[in-house]
């Protein structure tokens, strides 16, 4: 049977289920309205209207090329030079997707950790301290304190406390990724975005990383893109399911994994595709 794309899209549009949040303990800290992302003329994200609750973990899942990473990278405007992003990104009542926003200041509040651990070619200590020094945090005592707290929060302190002056490039993958988390939280962001942070790690490191994230949500709002559905189920309160550049379903994690409203979501979480 011949079905053209518009009809297909219309059918897909119909079958959507996106909740609005109303938890007074965890008010909405970040939300997007009518977000579209274009790489050149190609539209990679058709719409993403999501709300994120503060001090909770929200997971973005979906098959490869579904637009979840594109969406995440738009949130702190890492896509600025390579894509066109339209729509609103409301952070604490301010639209941060407008030219007048100081992106550098904004990224200090909305930090990011990447898929491949990317420690700098510096000592472990300087990986954390150098961005602070650039922002005028001086004084050995103060810096020592922040380095220690961040490494403790990232559950790395005990392993590296005697090697702070060694090169960060000598760390294992899991340690390097936790150093990147420590580096990101050292500048005291509000929100932490993680783009498949465990995909390059072994299962043990992944488990440690998940524990770290769970302990971090006390201080930070966490949004994590993951390929691993068990991971989303284990650590997140809310889950958004992306497919073909659209958010098809957004609800509590337990709803998405036990009783999804949309057929495509159900197919995906039960492993029928993706």
């Amino acid at each position, binding site marked *: 049977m011949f079905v053209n794309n518009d009809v297909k899209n219309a059918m897909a549009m119909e079958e959507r289920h996106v909740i609005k949040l109303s938890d007074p303990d965890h008010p909405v800290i970040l939300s997007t309205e009518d977000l579209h992302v274009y790489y050149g003329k190609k539209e990679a994200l058709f719409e993403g209207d999501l709300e994120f609750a503060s001090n909770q973990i929200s997971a973005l899942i979906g098959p490869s090329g579904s637009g979840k990473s594109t969406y995440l990278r738009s949130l702190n405007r*890492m896509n600025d030079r390579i894509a066109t992003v339209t729509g609103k990104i409301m952070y604490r009542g301010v639209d941060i997707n407008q030219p007048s926003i100081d992106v550098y200041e904004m*990224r200090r509040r909305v930090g990011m950790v990447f898929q491949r651990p990317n420690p700098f070619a510096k000592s472990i200590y300087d990986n954390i301290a150098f961005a602070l020094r650039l922002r005028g945090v001086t004084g050995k005592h103060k810096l020592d304190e922040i380095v220690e707290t961040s490494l403790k929060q990232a559950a790395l302190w005990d392993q590296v406390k005697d090697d702070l*002056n060694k090169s960060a490039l000598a760390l294992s993958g899991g340690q390097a990724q936790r150093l990147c988390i420590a580096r990101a939280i050292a500048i005291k962001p509000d929100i932490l975005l993680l783009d498949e942070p465990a995909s390059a790690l072994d299962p043990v490191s992944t488990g440690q990383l998940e524990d770290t994230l769970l302990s971090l949500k006390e201080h930070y709002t966490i949004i994590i893109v993951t390929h691993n559905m068990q991971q989303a189920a284990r650590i997140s309160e809310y889950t958004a399911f992306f497919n073909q550049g659209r958010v098809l379903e957004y609800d509590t994690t337990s709803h998405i994994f036990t009783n999804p409203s949309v057929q495509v979501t159900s197919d995906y979480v039960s492993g029928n595709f993706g």
Partner: protein
Amino acid sequence: MNSKTQNKIAIGGLYGIAGLVVLILLALLGYILASGVPQLSWHFLTAPGKAFLKGGGVGIQLYNSFYLLILAMLISFPIALGAAIYLYEYAKDNWVTTTIRTAIEILSSLPSVVVGLFGFLFFVVKLHLGFSILSGAFALTFFNLPLLTRSIEDSLRTISDVQREGGLALGLSRWETVTRVILPAAVPSILTGVILSAGRVFGEAAALIYTAGQSAPALDFTDWNPFNISSPLNPMRPAETLAVHIWKINSEGIMPDAKAISSGSSAVLVIAILLFNFAARYLGKRLYKRLTSA
């Protein structure tokens, strides 16, 4: 013929070709060193040259080579660094950058004698700089700039993009990311490129014949006031370098031991360039080690 014998023949052929290349290079190097090294002595390396008598040295030429090299590097390195940073870190791929890259390609394949003649017309004649170290340094800058820019750009390219994203994600500006994250990580490879290009500049003759000149006036190594004509630091004096010296005594040298001086100078030049290359490798490796394992 089965594929195994075919493979053996191919390997044999490739070994032969590689061996031939090594043989030619070793023969050349061996000849230069064998005929040159016996001429070397402290006197030869430090004494000024003599125009008509035997027993002259290459002290002034050797000093001039180093001085000119340092000046040329001081001028060309900041420009090349800036250009490379712009091209790789800032510029978008469009017709402007394509034009710049094409210009760099063309400049880097320009025969050095053409650079020298251009330097003569522009710096020596038009800007009234005369046959001077400064004219030579500018000409060498033109000669060196394209190669150095490309080598620094290649060094920046070796630093992964995830490092740039890491910097930006911490709220660093693009400039802070480049200067605090990318450049420190690229230092070993940039340094290697700089030293290798220094070796090329050190051995360059054609670009200098018409710019820095072919005479080596006596220098007074006790006088370090750059405004005095006999001061080694004076950038406005003519300054024959070692490479130019070799060319000159071979074409019009009238001292009785011209052949010996030419051989000795060639050996000094080759040894200096070899030292540059070894230094580049050694320093590059050491710096990289310090950055990666400590």
